[in-house]
């Protein structure tokens, strides 16, 4: 068991608990930096994809995981970010300006959209955002001069500090771009969580009444949460647009909104780790299933495994198993495994048996 002696308040303020944890993160960082050298184009592309989803997941996590505002419409903000970025690029702005601006614009639009939503809670908010996500499709079609309507738009190649970046042309450069954004967003998120604003998000999530009594302005706090969430999601959307190369009104569908929410719940609500773990599951699992189809195919000697759509069915099943196995998300499970190792050999087998738990109504605010 690791015992940490705390000798200064800074120890609680800095983002890692002990040197061991810090070195783990550093190793992870080093591995991620070296990924383009270690992986082939296929896996690098998948890794890039997972990172983009993780950014989007962090965007939603701010709002849903930390402020307790469920959104089933975040694909709309992906779309906003994506279109904003490309339109700005088309106006001749350099990428380094267009990209953060896209995030900012999405954040501001997010707040404007959120203002009427601030009084909603739970499923009511979820449905309002879902409706928004459905409407975004039509809004894109109706604002055709700006968005290209149903014909969609193509992402131009971008250049950062003179380096040409293109998803397919220069996958390594593209990966580094996405990686850099991931790191920046993650650091910002960590900072958020250890400062007053992040705490006020959690306060609003856990009890609006007492947050208010502590001087937290509920509407303003939610609005800020929407801003940050939408801004981050906008950045992810911009990257997703570059990643896809072409997109139109159908690209950011409601299904993606739903998948995003699924992702953070399965990863573990309320932790940054959860966004990443969820992104790995939602982002890579379908691909993994598709690859394992080859192995199964090789095993039974067929050319193709016969049942079409099987992957989606299995995907659903696996998600069900994930939720059943660990309703607190993968991160929750990871914490338990870690504790197991830390306590070794002083663990009890039934230590993590779930004690019966009971729900109370969420209809009281």
């Amino acid at each position: 068991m690791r015992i940490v002696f705390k000798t200064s308040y800074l120890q609680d303020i800095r983002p890692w608990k002990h040197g061991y944890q810090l070195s783990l993160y550093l190793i992870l960082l080093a591995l991620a930096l070296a990924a383009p050298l270690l992986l082939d184009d296929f896996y690098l592309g998948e890794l890039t994809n997972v990172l983009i989803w993780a950014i989007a997941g962090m965007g939603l996590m701010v709002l849903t995981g930390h402020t307790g505002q469920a959104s089933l419409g975040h694909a709309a903000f992906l779309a906003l970010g994506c279109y904003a970025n490309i339109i700005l690029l088309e106006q001749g702005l350099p990428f380094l300006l267009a990209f953060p601006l896209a995030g900012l614009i999405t954040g501001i639009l997010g707040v404007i959209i959120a203002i009427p939503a601030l009084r909603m809670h739970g499923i009511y908010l979820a449905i309002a955002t879902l409706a928004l996500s459905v409407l975004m499709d039509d809004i894109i079609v109706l604002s055709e001069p700006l968005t290209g309507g149903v014909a969609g738009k193509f992402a131009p190649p971008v250049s950062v500090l003179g380096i040409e970046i293109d998803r397919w042309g220069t996958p390594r450069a593209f990966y580094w771009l996405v990686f850099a954004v991931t790191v920046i967003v993650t650091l910002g998120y960590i900072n958020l969580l250890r400062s007053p604003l992040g705490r006020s998000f959690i306060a609003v999530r856990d009890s609006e009444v007492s947050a208010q009594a502590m001087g937290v302005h509920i509407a303003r706090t939610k609005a800020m949460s929407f801003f940050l969430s939408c801004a981050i999601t906008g950045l992810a959307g911009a990257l997703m647009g570059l990643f896809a190369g072409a997109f139109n009104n159908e690209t950011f569908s409601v299904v993606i909104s739903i998948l995003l929410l699924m992702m953070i719940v399965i990863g573990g609500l309320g932790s940054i780790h959860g966004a990443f773990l969820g992104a790995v599951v939602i982002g890579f699992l379908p691909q993994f299933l598709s690859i394992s189809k080859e192995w199964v195919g090789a095993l039974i000697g067929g050319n193709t495994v016969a049942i079409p759509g099987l992957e989606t069915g299995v995907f659903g099943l696996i998600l069900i198993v994930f939720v059943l196995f660990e309703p607190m998300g993968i991160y929750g499970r990871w914490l338990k495994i870690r504790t197991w190792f830390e306590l070794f050999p002083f663990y009890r087998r039934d230590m993590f048996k779930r004690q019966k738990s009971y729900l109370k109504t969420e209809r009281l605010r």
Partner: protein
Amino acid sequence: MDNLQLVISGLANGCVYGLIALGFVLIYKATEAVNFAQGDMMMLGAFVTIGLTNADHMGLPFWVAVPISLGLMAGFGVLLDRLLIRRMFGESQTSVVILTIALGFVIRFVAGLIWGHEPQTLQNPLAGRDIRFGGLVLGLEDVAVIVVTVLLTLSLYLFFARTKLGLAMQAASQNQLAAYYMGIPVKRVQGLIWGLAGMVACVAGILFAAKGAVDPNSGLLGIKAFAAAVIGGFGSLPGALAGGLIVGLIEPFASRYIAAGYSQIAPYALVLIVLIVRPHGLFSQIRLKKV
């Protein structure tokens, strides 16, 4: 006359939304869980009935097939509860939502596997029969939809308001722990409600497939029905019907009178507007906590 026709068809259609919404509300009212697979259960109910009664499947007489499929779907609901939902007892609403979304994937896949992906219509004795008064045409299916929905809503409403079991269900949703302290078999009650929801989904499916056609993706209609339930104030049975009717009515009028390009937006825009005006639906179930 024209408008009257729109009203009637809007009502009939709204009743289908209302029926699916009823399923959502039923489960919510008794367990505070949101069953995102309700639309898919409706689709499944429709296919089960088609599988039993259509000539190119088993070809049972319609009135024999209906009770069997109602029973099967009730059993399916109970089974879901036993296998999945019960294991999630006491876990947060969000995890249950995710579980049912994933369940929807699986149901859609299985339905596609069994019945294929092409739309199918339920062969039924009401098909193609119309009632006409003057210029007004009313499909017999539409009449059936309206009658069944109103009856079902009413009886479920009375069940919750008047019976001991209904009261116990409401209690269990508000405070599971206290419900146990009162000796309410909370899990069994939940199983019951899932069975009931399966049955309601089946009724909705039958009426839906009789009015039009179903394919494995018809379950996505659940999203609109969900919105309808929320408009009504999620948790209120009459609210679900009201929400369904509102969405059902806005559609024909919007496509009749609003310019192309905008008309299809109407139902979702309406959802937004209703929620902006009444953030917790028409028959609000949300209370301010007394501290």
